[in-house]
């Protein structure tokens, strides 16, 4: 099927990764961060000093013991970082020289069925790669999803190019799709970028429904794709996962071990040489950024600049992220910044004179360019919202915590990331994603 999206925009930010792989010596430190998994309450299994193999359980979901989280590498648990109220933030593993894998039972690929796949994914710690909408939490293995969505492209700013990453992985990806599509009686959707000719690995995939999605960001967001292809009503559940995770699943069933390697892009205006890296899940970003940064204050983000998580210079890449962004930290004041012509400023509106000399890319920084205010402008969010909802009315219904109104206005169809562009464009600097998240959490709490 073809889906054409007209609302949205591709932000012109500097620092896209060159299509080359950089060689680095792997980091000694890896971490699994419970905060990557929304609403998860972890129950620790290991303690500092324990030795683990790749695939050994580190912690599991307190509410659903079957959902386990395993170590991506072998080594020794070197630290368990806790935050306020002793909340577990990071389980840090110091890796040994060579990765030793835990042996899982090798299955006959022909005799796999839904239950056995789910069981294997659960024990290997691979289950968390499958998330669900609404709520974007880890999928509940007892649910029957209406459909499975895989967005083969990422439309967010400076996103890694999957056509490049998947080069030569055709058979492995097809194997992964064959396994994943058995998880659901409904359709498995593989959504490819309609704006350019997608790589054969995606466009020739079998056993799934291939949809061409046209248009600017957020066309690559699964939420937008789900809305147009299999809209979620109250009570529906749709599962989704990232294309690289399809490869990880395929590797697991092929080799019987948890091989958590993945390819990430190091991007952003503060990176000397933005490139692609072959790393292992949860790696510290230190080796990637070493001697590879420009001067000045920087912000490190696991993920993209719209939805990613702020991390430290020696932080770890998030479980669901395939990109590290390093941008300028905008901790400067600007004299009469709101009054001057602003020839160099990036704005989606024409309120600054930068429309006179539009550049192809801008060094966008983390300054908020103003303070938070009440809603004043109208019609602004709608320009960047390709989902048939009224964004401002939905946000206001969340602010007054009216659950019935939220449901009526379509909260089940949205996710914070779908509102990222609205938040970027907002004149009143309203923390839109945070509010949407609060609304979803409120409903989740009421439902359980």
């Amino acid at each position, binding site marked *: 099927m073809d889906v054409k999206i007209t609302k949205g925009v591709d932000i012109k930010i500097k620092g896209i990764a060159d299509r080359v792989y950089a060689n680095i010596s792997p980091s000694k430190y890896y971490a699994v961060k419970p905060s990557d998994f929304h609403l998860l309450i972890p129950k620790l299994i290991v303690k500092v000093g324990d030795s683990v193999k790749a695939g050994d359980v580190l912690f599991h979901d307190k509410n659903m013991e079957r959902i386990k989280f395993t170590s991506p590498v072998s080594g020794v648990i070197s630290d368990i970082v806790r935050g306020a109220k002793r909340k577990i933030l990071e389980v840090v593993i110091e890796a040994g020289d060579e990765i030793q894998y835990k042996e899982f039972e090798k299955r006959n690929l022909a005799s796999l069925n839904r239950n056995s796949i789910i069981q294997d994914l659960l024990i290997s710690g691979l289950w968390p790669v499958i998330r669900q909408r609404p709520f974007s939490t880890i999928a509940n293995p007892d649910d029957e999803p209406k459909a499975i969505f895989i967005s083969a492209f990422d439309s967010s700013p400076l996103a890694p190019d999957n056509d490049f990453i998947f080069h030569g992985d055709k058979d492995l990806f097809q194997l992964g799709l064959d396994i994943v599509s058995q998880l659901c009686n409904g359709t498995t959707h593989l959504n490819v970028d309609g704006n350019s000719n997608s790589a054969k690995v995606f466009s020739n995939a079998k056993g799934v429904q291939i949809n061409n999605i046209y248009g600017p960001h957020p066309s690559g967001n699964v939420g937008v794709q789900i809305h147009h292809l299999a809209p979620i009503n109250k009570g529906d559940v749709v599962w989704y996962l990232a294309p690289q995770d399809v490869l990880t699943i395929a590797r697991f069933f092929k080799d019987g071990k948890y091989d958590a390697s993945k390819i990430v892009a190091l991007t952003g205006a503060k990176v000397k040489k933005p490139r692609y890296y072959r790393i292992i899940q949860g790696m510290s970003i230190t080796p990637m950024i070493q001697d590879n940064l420009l001067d000045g204050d920087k912000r490190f983000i696991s993920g993209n600049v719209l939805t990613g998580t*702020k991390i430290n210079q020696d932080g770890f890449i998030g479980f669901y992220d395939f990109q590290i*962004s390093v941008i300028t930290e905008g901790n400067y*004041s600007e004299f*009469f*910044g709101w009054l001057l012509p602003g020839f160099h400023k990036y704005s989606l509106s024409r309120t600054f004179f930068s429309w006179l000399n539009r550049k192809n890319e801008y060094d966008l920084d983390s300054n*908020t360019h*103003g303070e938070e205010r009440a809603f004043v402008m109208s019609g602004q969010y709608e320009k960047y919202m390709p989902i048939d909802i009224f964004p401002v009315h939905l946000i206001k219904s969340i602010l007054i915590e009216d659950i019935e109104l939220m449901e009526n206005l379509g909260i089940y169809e949205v996710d914070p990331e779908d509102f990222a562009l609205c938040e970027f464009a907002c004149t009143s600097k309203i923390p839109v994603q945070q509010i949407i998240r609060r609304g979803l959490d409120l409903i989740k709490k009421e439902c359980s």
Partner: protein
Amino acid sequence: MKLMHNILNKIKPHFEEGGKLQTLYPAYDAFETFLFVPNHTSDSGTHIKDAVDLKRTMVLVIIALIPCLLFGMWNTGYQYFSQLQEGMTGFQDSYTNWEYFFFGLCKVLPLIIVSYVVGLSVEFYFAVKRKHQVNEGYLVTGMLIPLTMPIDVPLWMLALSVVFAVVIGKEVFGGTGMNILNPALTARAFIFFAYPTKMSGDKVWVNQAGSLDGVSGETALGELATLINVDSSNINTSNIFSQFSNDGIYSLSNAFFGIIPGSVGETSVLAILIGACVLLFTGVGSRIIMFSMFFGGLLMAYILNLVGPETNLFMSLPPIHQLCLGGFFFGMVFMATDPVSAAQTTKGKIIYGFLCGVLSILIRIVNPAYPEGVMVAILFMNVMAPLIDHYVVQANINRRLKRIETNE
């Protein structure tokens, strides 16, 4: 600039928690952020943000108002001197445009100063009391209010209307962004109903017209209103109506360029359209509302023109001429488009704007008690806007519910 920054940093501790002037922090903050866009970095959600903020948006509206303001000053002087010397030949030679402008400047500036000083004082008071930041909304309101006033309005009356508009029109609802009515029109409506002698009639629209004998400072619409239900063959009536012909003082070109008596900023359609271009190009003003209101007004004027009885010469005025008189364009470009009090949804905006236009002309022509209907029409539609939005949003909700039914 560096010096300024250092001074601010030096006095900041007094206003922060524990300082002597802690309660005045919102005032300090307003001053600091006026001079410097603050060094805040995003701490949740998107790590990058668009360069535009509310201060920028508001200052663009003020820039869009400048042509109206400058022309209004010139026209104030021009109307005064032309009425003063009415009947004397060659008066145009005895005064220069700069003299008109300077005279107007001296008359209009006090209005602006009073409006800003009083309005901002109230805003700061509420910000300090409620411990929130000072919102930028009043920057625009404070400019709009003097532009909608007759030149002779007493300053204390203006101050009173500003206080009424800010407190009752805005702050009781929670401040900028929460108000139901357009604050600037609330101020005008307050004077209109509380002190009608200063806001209507034939003696207020030209400076000192009241003290000069034989001066007709009537607005075009005021004159037209006297034509309703009057025999058109009456000599007096046709004399009045002849002022609207091509060489009369209320001719279409005079109305378009704005060389007629009226509120300070409303007379010149040309100046307003320059402002409209700024608003439309920058995207600050809603083009949907502007165009739908224009078509609503045009359609209503056209219909009344078609059905108008012989005895009502008011209706026989051509529709475009009708729209160029009074405050229709000013209301359309600067008042109806106020994003807070207008409808919020796209469909809602079309309906809202269209009805604003229809009602403006309907009230103006059909109801002789209000020679101008734009203010009342927009205020009425401000009240109705949430209702319009409610039905537009309800349609979306129903569409979603229907989807569930068809699935089952």
